[in-house]
């Protein structure tokens, strides 16, 4: 008897699901199919659950406070933690994003904000940071703060905290900073990072993904 009731319930549920599918708006189905296609075309690494845009207030290279959530609202926001003396990851990521933004139509590139948060505030003075970023793109935003603020920012942004490596005794003042290598992309519609871009992402990948992401997360 119990089995008969169970089978009956399953059958009823299946019928209702069938009806629901039959009644679905074809335009909505097509839209969700195209979103799924757009998502599958993205070349970054998707993260589930998506990460919320952190509430951060740091200092710009002009010495003004910068509220990340407020200042980047409605923009595709690419956040990266790095330092200007970095020999490899930071200049390559920054140069690649800069090159791609220059090659994209203005209506796309104007909806993107690249935020570079220094992990080496000691050497990356606002002047050094500003000059370095301007050498790639005058529109890039450099943020700095105290060591404690930077550490807190990394924790809120859920990235591996940067570690200053032991300086080379032969070269006083010269040291490397181990830091997270991924660019976190917060989409403009929901301020969530559904996707991150680890080191190794290429210009052609950015050129593919940015035009999709400026319109929000495909859903």
């Amino acid at each position, binding site marked *: 008897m119990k089995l008969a009731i169970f089978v009956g319930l399953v059958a009823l549920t299946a019928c209702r699901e069938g009806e629901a599918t039959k009644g679905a708006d074809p335009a909505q189905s097509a839209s969700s199919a195209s979103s799924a296609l757009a998502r599958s075309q993205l070349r970054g690494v998707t993260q589930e659950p998506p990460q919320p845009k952190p509430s951060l207030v740091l200092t710009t290279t002009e010495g003004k406070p910068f509220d990340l959530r407020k200042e980047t609202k409605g923009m595709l926001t690419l956040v990266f933690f790095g330092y200007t003396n970095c020999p490899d990851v930071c*200049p*390559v990521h920054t140069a690649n994003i800069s*090159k*791609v933004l220059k*090659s994209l139509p203005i209506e796309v590139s104007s909806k993107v904000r690249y935020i570079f948060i220094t992990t080496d505030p000691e050497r990356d003075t606002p002047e050094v940071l500003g000059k370095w970023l301007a050498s790639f793109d005058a529109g890039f935003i450099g943020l700095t703060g105290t060591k404690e603020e930077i550490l807190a920012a990394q924790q809120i942004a859920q990235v591996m905290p940067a570690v200053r490596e032991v300086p080379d005794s032969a070269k006083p003042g010269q040291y490397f900073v181990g830091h997270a290598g991924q660019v976190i992309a917060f989409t403009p519609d929901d301020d969530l990072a559904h996707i991150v871009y680890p*080191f190794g992402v290429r210009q*052609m990948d950015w050129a593919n993904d940015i035009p999709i992401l400026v319109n929000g997360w495909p859903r």
Partner: protein
Amino acid sequence: MTWWCSATALEWTWAWRPYPGVWLFIAALVVWYARKNRLPSHVSRLTAFGAGLVLLWSLLDWPLGALGAGYLLSIHTTQYVLITCVAIPLLLVGIPPARRSRGRFSRFMAGPAAGLLGYTGIMAVTHIPSVSDTLMATQVGSLVVDLAWIAGALVLWWPVLAPEGVVRISPPLRVGYLFLATIPPTIPAAFMVFADYPLYATYELAPRVAGIAAGSDQQSAGLIMKAGADPLLWIAMAIVFFRWQRAEDAAERQARPLSPQEIVS
């Protein structure tokens, strides 16, 4: 120990690094040449072989070898052009006359089709981005690329510069053959110059050297591939043509009967 230059993703420094694999390779060529050349050789041949060897060594060893393997596509392409159009032709010119060889293989190698197809095939495969990125990441892969380039240059130049005694194509055919050899590099060169974004991950993601951007490095590489190689091939065409003309004139002079005045004088 690093035996052969390959992409390392390490920051570039001007601190010298040894690559013993390159030294062994060059030493093997010296030993081979010395064994083949027991009798005192013609000075010009020896000079040509020596110059080719020194050039090959400088292209494969630090710093050019290391820069080309993992940092700058423009240097990688310079290596390719100089190995193909200068180093290997010099080595071939320096090889002493061989015993007459007219076997099937020798005739096949002397054919323009084999030369052009072999050279074009090797050039095309070693410049496919996915192939190049995979090979340049390891020492063995990078060695394979360098040896493939040397092999490609040998098959290209064999019909023109094979040692005396070995079958070659006729001088007018050589000129046409060398002209045809200027065409295939146009394709990878055009891709490099006109691509919207960098084609090779190795050079795009490498730590920058002297602030040279990946895009402009790639465009320079494309220009070197075409504008660097073509003049070298034109020079070779001119040399072949004028030598042929001189030989024809000399043959004509010998064949012509002497005039009475020439006999009297």
